[in-house]
């Protein structure tokens, strides 16, 4: 493409030169030609007029004395005017009086009239000019002369002119071509050079290339200079960009390595917690039970109560460890995004909750067709926790309503789970999402306090937000976006 552009700039220059030259020359020739022709024609006409006047006045006496022979003689002197093909003297009533023909086959009009008062008249056909001139004697019309003249010289002249103009045109076009070569060398070539450099630079991304300054001066030299300056700027910018990118890449690599090391460590940590931390708990619980069972008769009530507390605490610690591990797992788990239907997930959780506590009077409202894209397994955990909480924190009420739906808040779509249960003090709304943070006592509502922490992590991993609203005994609403 750039090649085509290059060709066209030089050929454009040449073409322009030629066009200007040809136009100027043609216009000039045309001007000369028309001026010359007009003058020439006028001169011819004047000559003809004079000739006919002379002939006319020489023939006056012949006309007056009705002497056609003498008129004939007068006419025959026209022999010396080679351009005159024929001539005739007419009587005032338009009849030929005396005629002259250069060659016998030339016809002369048998009758010709001239309007009274008219002195002279002329007309043309394609190769002749005709002129009629009135003859008067003592103020009265005595007849008129008729002359037919060849315009061949005029045609010859035009032809010569055109030939000369053609030769001139060819000569000057060649000259223009030659001149435009020179112009090309001084204008187009530097531009071409520049274009070549630009092309090389953009192809090879080699910004250290420079356009060579040639012999040219003025705007072209400035263009080359500015172009080089621009290249220099790009080069420095490119270099610093490259350096920044390398640094960034290094950074990212390092961070990634650190992150994956941390992740591995976390994984190893939770693996070992999962295996090793629970084993002693099992021993404590198991042997406390063995003690209670095997030494039932030797232990008093208080000892048995202590043992049962030990077992309860141990069990609880087991639950805490499991919850903690689940929380860690949520953080580590890879996100598998897929189209999911939150409504059907919520409904199935509601079903499970109902089955677990069939005695409870709960009205469950789930908005239909809440479809989105996300990790189905993890979002199920979110809804399990939110609906589970709603279920749990309404348990002190004989009748309760739990809703899962979506609504528009400002300019985002938020999902929410709302209930009309125990609620919470809104002053602590921000604390709910911390691990092991609870706003209700263990004796009031059981739980470990990692549910909402898990919810928050999952929502954050989906790039969303989660927040809560509520008031004591007025229920609670948990919003999340995805």
């Amino acid at each position: 493409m750039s090649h085509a552009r290059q060709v066209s700039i030089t050929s454009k220059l040449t073409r322009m030169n030629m066009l200007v030259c040809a136009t100027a020359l043609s216009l000039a020739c045309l001007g000369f030609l028309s001026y010359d022709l007009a003058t020439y024609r006028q001169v011819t006409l004047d000559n003809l007029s004079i000739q006919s006047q002379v002939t006319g006045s020489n023939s006056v006496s012949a006309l007056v004395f009705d002497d056609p022979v003498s008129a004939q003689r007068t006419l025959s002197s026209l022999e010396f005017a080679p351009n005159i093909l024929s001539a005739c003297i007419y009587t005032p009533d338009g009849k030929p009086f005396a005629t002259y023909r250069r060659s016998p086959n030339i016809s002369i009009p048998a009758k010709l009239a001239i309007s009274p008062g008219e002195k002279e008249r002329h007309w043309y056909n394609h190769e002749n000019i005709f002129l009629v001139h009135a003859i008067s004697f003592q103020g009265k019309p005595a007849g008129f002369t008729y002359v037919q003249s060849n315009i061949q010289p005029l045609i010859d002249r035009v032809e010569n002119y055109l030939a000369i103009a053609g030769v001139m045109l060819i000569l000057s076009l060649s000259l223009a071509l030659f001149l435009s070569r020179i112009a090309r060398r001084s204008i187009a070539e530097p531009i071409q050079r520049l274009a070549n450099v630009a092309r090389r630079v953009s192809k090879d991304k080699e910004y250290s290339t420079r356009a060579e300054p040639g012999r040219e001066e003025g705007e072209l030299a400035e263009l080359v200079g500015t172009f080089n300056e621009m290249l220099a700027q790009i080069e420095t910018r490119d270099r610093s960009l490259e350096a920044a990118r390398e640094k960034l890449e290094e950074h990212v690599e390092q961070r990634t390595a650190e992150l994956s090391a941390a992740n591995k460590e976390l994984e190893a940590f939770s693996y070992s917690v999962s295996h090793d931390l629970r084993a002693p708990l099992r021993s404590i619980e198991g042997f406390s039970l063995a003690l209670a069972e095997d030494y039932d008769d030797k232990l008093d009530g208080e000892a048995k109560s202590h043992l049962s507390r030990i077992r309860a605490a141990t069990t609880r610690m087991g639950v805490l460890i499991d919850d903690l591990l689940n929380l860690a797992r949520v953080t580590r788990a890879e996100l598998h995004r897929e189209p999911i239907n939150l409504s059907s997930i919520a409904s199935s959780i509601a079903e499970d909750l109902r089955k677990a506590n069939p005695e409870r009077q709960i009205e469950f409202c789930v908005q239909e067709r809440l479809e989105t894209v996300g990790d189905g397994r993890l979002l199920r955990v979110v809804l399990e926790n939110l609906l589970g909480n709603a279920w749990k924190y309404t348990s002190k009420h004989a009748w309760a309503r739990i809703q899962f739906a979506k609504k528009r808040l400002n300019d985002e779509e938020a999902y929410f789970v709302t209930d009309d249960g125990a609620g919470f003090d809104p002053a602590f709304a921000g604390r709910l999402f911390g691990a092991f943070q609870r706003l209700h006592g263990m004796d009031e509502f059981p739980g470990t306090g990692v549910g909402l922490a898990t919810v928050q992590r999952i929502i954050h991993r989906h790039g969303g937000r989660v927040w809560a609203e509520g008031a004591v005994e007025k229920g609670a609403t948990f919003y999340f976006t995805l």
Partner: protein
Amino acid sequence: MEDAVILLVEDNPDDEVLTLRALKKNNIRNDVIVAHDGMEALDYLFGRGKFAERDTRMMPQVILLDLKLPKLDGFDVLRALRSDERTKLLPVVILTSSNEEQDRANGYGLGANSYVRKPVEFGAFIEAVKQLGLYWLILNQIAPVARRK
């Protein structure tokens, strides 16, 4: 089938006592051979080392296998079992503390027949062992060969 033995591979002495207790609570009276690490378990099964005198035609009815073991871990033992003709079809129940997805997947991938997590509550453990005993010692004893790999 009092003569069919159970092989318990367990390094933690507390867990050993508790597992034996859970078996007893469920009235499972089979002999229990305890191996304390993976090496010992394989020695027993293939009649090597201190079990060189053993009649290896007698294989345990079921193997209860812990995962975290010194020397060879549970997965190594499982791999060795599944790649030997003599033990390829022995029922193996993984009995472990962890509830890690990856352990479960690995266990089943290597050909374990079941996976039981040892709960903290002993009562729940007794219940789990009861289910195990029912299946592997009573229901499954009649056709010991036709088991899934």
